[in-house]
């Protein structure tokens, strides 16, 4: 029995909230494509601002893409073995490790970046390279990779599967290759999407860690908002949206799990 009035009230409220979130996005996309934002759509549509962004900020786009892929590689190498260890052992020590891993996420990016600067700022080669930013990104995204893989590994009976493989003669590395890795594929995929998405959008740390030669897309955005006309900033934001949209859609698709299958006994 639906209380129709209440339903429509809540629906209206939700629509309002959605509008609050989406309208500025739409406005910004439009602003990036109109000749003159103040005049509005009557001034005509154009790709001129997008091209201006591409010419002036092409490097930031490539750097962001490169960084997120590098971040992915590093988090895979560091994170998958860590998740394996955490799946194999659940005791006070492993819980402490999980807590520790999450710290760079809990602590404001500003603090983490500052800490890195005061410690390694004097190594000018390191400080001015994109590796410096990469370190910050890895610290921030590692717990997501670990959690994602750990979730999948915890859901399967890892111990028995490994014992089964061991009983057939498989040593540690064959087991890791044949049993552990293939069975956490879903976790690795979901974790990878998360890492790439987060790395692309990271700003708090990156703003402090960057140098004029190592600007990422969000850093470029901050520059553009501050110094350039609204249309260029909007076009730049549009480029960002275009890059992040497929990732977000893929992430949302991952959020819906497949239902478990039931197989009836056949008469044998």
């Amino acid at each position: 029995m639906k209380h129709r009035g209440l339903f429509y009230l809540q629906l209206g409220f939700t629509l309002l909230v959605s509008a609050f979130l989406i309208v500025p996005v739409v406005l910004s996309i439009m602003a990036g494509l109109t000749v003159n934002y103040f005049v509005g759509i009557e001034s005509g549509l154009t790709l001129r601002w997008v091209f201006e962004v591409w010419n002036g900020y092409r490097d930031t786009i490539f750097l962001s893409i490169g960084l997120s892929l590098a971040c992915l590689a590093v988090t895979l190498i560091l994170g998958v073995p860590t998740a394996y260890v955490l799946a194999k052992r659940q005791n006070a020590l492993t819980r402490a490790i999980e807590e520790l891993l999450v710290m760079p996420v809990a602590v404001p990016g500003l603090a983490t970046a500052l800490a890195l600067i005061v410690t390694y700022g004097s190594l000018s080669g390191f400080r001015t390279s994109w590796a410096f930013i990469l370190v910050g990104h890895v610290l921030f995204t590692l717990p997501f990779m670990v959690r994602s893989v750990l979730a999948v590994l915890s859901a399967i009976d890892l111990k028995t599967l490994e014992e089964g493989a061991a009983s057939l003669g498989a040593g540690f590395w064959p087991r890791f290759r044949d049993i552990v890795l293939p069975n956490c594929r879903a976790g690795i995929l979901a974790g990878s999407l998360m890492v790439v998405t987060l790395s692309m959008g990271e700003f708090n740390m990156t703003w402090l860690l960057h140098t004029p030669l190592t600007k990422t897309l969000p850093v470029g955005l901050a520059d553009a908002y501050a110094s350039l006309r609204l249309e260029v900033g909007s076009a730049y934001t549009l480029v960002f949206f275009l890059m992040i949209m497929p990732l977000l859609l893929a992430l949302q698709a991952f959020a819906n799990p497949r239902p478990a299958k039931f197989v009836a006994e056949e008469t044998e």
Partner: protein
Amino acid sequence: MMTEAGKPLAIALENCAKTFPDGTRALEPLDFAIEAGETVVFLGPSGCGKTTTLRIIAGLEEPDAGGRVLFDGEDVTHLPIEQRNVGMVFQSYALFPNMTVAGNIGYGLRIRRTPEAAIKARVAEMLGMMQIAKLADRRIDQLSGGQRQRVALARAIAVRPRALLLDEPLTALDAKLRDTLRLDIDALLRSLGITAIYVTHDQAEAMALGDRIVVMEHGRVAQIGKPREIYQRPATRFVAEFIGTMNRLTGMTDNGVFACRAGNLPWADAPANATEILFRPEDIRVAESHETAGLQGTVAAAFFLGDRTRLFVEVGEARPLVIESTARRDFGHGEAVRLAIDPRGLLVL
């Protein structure tokens, strides 16, 4: 170190105990020898140490210091399972979800770097033996419980292990399937002639499959023997009550007669100080009208089961006697009956 694959193994456990890091004593020191080709069943309730013993034999656990595991006289105590060449079937089957049925069965051979053609042939052989040829390319989550069981067996046997270790393989299946598969496993073990160690809490399985049964309780061996011995001559009360049903009469012996509330039971071999006698439901029957019988009771409940009637008869003891009767008549509630016991089935513990 692996000896010749395929020849059945004699296994010996010497002074094997197991204490876990948190202090639980899972197994008291155990000495036991398994003959080549024998099927030994470790039977007992959960927590009795049977699975721990199996895992020590497998190489998944190490016995406490001083314990030794010997394969054909060779000390393998510190050899990990990867090198023991035993086939293991787990309670949850442990089938690899990322491989097909054929992939699972061939895995052990692949690890041993067997040539591809030989793997294919052996896998086909196993599929045929287990009658699951049509499942070869299925994924594990597409299989029913019984099918998974067969795949698990096929996978374990494919590598020609020297011994087969089965950890409650039928527990996860429903009753009817269990009965069918029990026969299949029995036939399989016999045809392979392999040394097999089988762990279960189901005494019917133990009796059907074991050449010898080791009944365990609280980490200790309660009795070792052939199924018939265990059933008819249980060594302790625990074994008596764990296996099948046991009836009990309390009273006193007096000159070749056991006197109890139910009446007087003539028993020439009655031990002098027996205060309690035990016997199976099939060793007691309702006496015919013309027979003399010393015991009396009243029928509390009667269940007609088709081939026999199960009677619960009150005789003044804590629990009613359970009697399996093949008499071709009905028993009324409250009916007075006279009971005769076969003295060969009487036990004093």
